[in-house]
């Protein structure tokens, strides 16, 4: 019983030593933060998105700061799945933490191929499916904005791999719970929410957009209340474990998501501000449990007093 307070949580078949993950796109493939974070102290790492072919990403500038927020338009720059398997996975496999690989594609066939390919390799604990990309087949529709497309994609992926599937939802929809329910029916293991909120910023002196890609995705503390609300709504509608994401800078912020119904959290933009923040959040959660005299972290999940 030396493990009290017990921080362990489970996302379906994925068992985490603690509920703190690092969000896709903010932690590279695990190598960049090695001087600051021992991944063995984290619940897991969600990798930068991997696509079928290499992607060079969007033109600069790719970042613009907004009040308590960050707009980015990186454009899924990544070396492609072949290079990922050859150069990134061997290092990731050696880390003593859960490895969740984020996959993205423009067509359903790309996702299926990626899932099949990655599923055959050992050392990957789960896939996080980024369904916020434009669907070229359906002319600009986005998988994550249509319950039917999301259902069909997840159903297909379920057949393509035995790896647990975590579906990452976009907030840029009228009702996120519809997409969440579709993913649940199709067999998702867990849901991640939220991805960035679509946004734009303009330099009035030059009259130019601040991002090279004109629009981008907003992250950081500015979006946290939106994310907490969406986690709460989704928690009320689905029975899947949720990973809460959106502007988490501290253990207190993480706890908001947990009380709203998330089983785990992923820390994103905060990694840019403080590379060791994820470890500080783990420690902060432990202290909170001790202070509140709670032995098991999972007792807090959805424990909102209304």
């Amino acid at each position, binding site marked *: 019983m030396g493990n009290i307070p017990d921080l362990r949580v489970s996302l379906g078949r994925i068992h985490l030593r603690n509920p703190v993950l690092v969000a896709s*796109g*903010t*932690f*590279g493939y695990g190598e*960049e*933060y090695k*001087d*600051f974070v021992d991944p063995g102290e984290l619940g897991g790492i969600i990798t*930068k998105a991997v696509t079928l072919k290499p992607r*060079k*990403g969007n*033109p*600069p*500038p*790719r*970042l*613009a*700061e907004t*009040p*308590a*927020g*960050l707009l*980015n338009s*990186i454009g899924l*720059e990544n070396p492609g799945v072949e290079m990922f398997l050859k150069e990134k996975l061997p290092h990731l496999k050696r880390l003593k933490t859960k490895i969740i690989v984020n996959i993205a594609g423009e067509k359903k066939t790309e996702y299926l191929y990626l899932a099949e390919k990655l599923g055959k390799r050992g050392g990957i604990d789960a896939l996080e499916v980024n369904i916020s990309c434009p669907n070229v087949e359906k002319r600009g529709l986005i998988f994550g904005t249509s319950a039917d497309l999301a259902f069909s994609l997840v159903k297909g992926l379920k057949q393509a791999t035995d790896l647990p599937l975590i579906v990452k939802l976009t907030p840029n929809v009228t009702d996120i719970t519809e997409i969440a329910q579709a993913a649940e029916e199709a067999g998702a293991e867990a849901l991640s929410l939220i991805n960035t909120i679509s946004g734009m910023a303009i*330099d009035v002196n*030059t009259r*130019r957009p*601040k991002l*090279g890609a004109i629009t981008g995705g907003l992250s*950081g*503390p500015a979006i946290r209340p939106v994310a907490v609300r969406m986690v709460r709504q989704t928690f009320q509608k689905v029975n899947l474990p949720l990973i809460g994401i959106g502007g988490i*800078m501290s253990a207190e912020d993480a706890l908001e998501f947990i009380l709203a119904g998330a089983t785990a959290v992923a820390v994103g*933009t905060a*990694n*840019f*501000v*403080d*590379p*060791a923040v994820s470890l500080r959040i783990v420690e902060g959660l432990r202290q909170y449990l001790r202070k509140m005299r709670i032995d098991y972290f999972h007792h807090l999940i959805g424990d909102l007093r209304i």
Partner: protein
Amino acid sequence: MYQVKARVLSNEKVGEAHYRMKLEVSQIAKDARPGQFVHIRCSSDHDPLLRRPFSIHKCAQGRIDILYQVVGGGTRILSKKRRGDQLDLLGPLGKGFEVEPAFSKIFIVSGGIGVAPLYMVAQEITRLGQGKEVTALLGAKNKELILGKDDWESLGLRVMIATEDGSEGYQGLVSALFERLILSQTSLSLAVYSCGPVPMLRKIAELSSHGGFFCQVSLEQRMGCGLGACLGCVIRGTSGYLRVCKEGPVFDAQEILWDDPDLEIR
């Protein structure tokens, strides 16, 4: 790479919006190479949210100096820091300048606040020894903005000044002074190190390419993590996008696509 709480030793105004900050950072000072940078959290709340990168200007005995110009919210907050305040620093980060013993003739060309990363490369060259002809060309709008001229002169190299208003030295752009000095020179053992506004660097790179000189420049871009993870600070290079925080901030001039209008920071 370290994350440290650094104590501010001093923060002195040295020009109209220019400051020199001395920071106590023993580990970073020990490891820092010319051209590398530190990533500073200017505010502990969320405005501004991100860190700000600053070239290491000087480094000695457990401390570093940064030289900076107030251009926005982050640097404005920094300019208010006083002796004894603490700042969260990451560093030393990025790839610095390469100095080869084979270079016999060296030009260091700075424009405005671009002088910041070049002082350490000048020190390194002087350390490497005798028989080198080293010229530092320091350019600014006016003589008040030529920062640290005495420091440069104490290194024992030839220092030439260019001011746009002619208040000291050559009247005109420092790139024009450089052009006059290297006129008709072609030498593979000639090296150029430069930092300053993009139009100036573009000119220096073009002249160096014509002359066949080894030329390295320090560039900037809006930056996220500073560690190579977020891919936010890229610029266009001849081989694709390059991360300023990782492949840079010092680049070989020939790696850069100089005709990209977006090289100039928005």
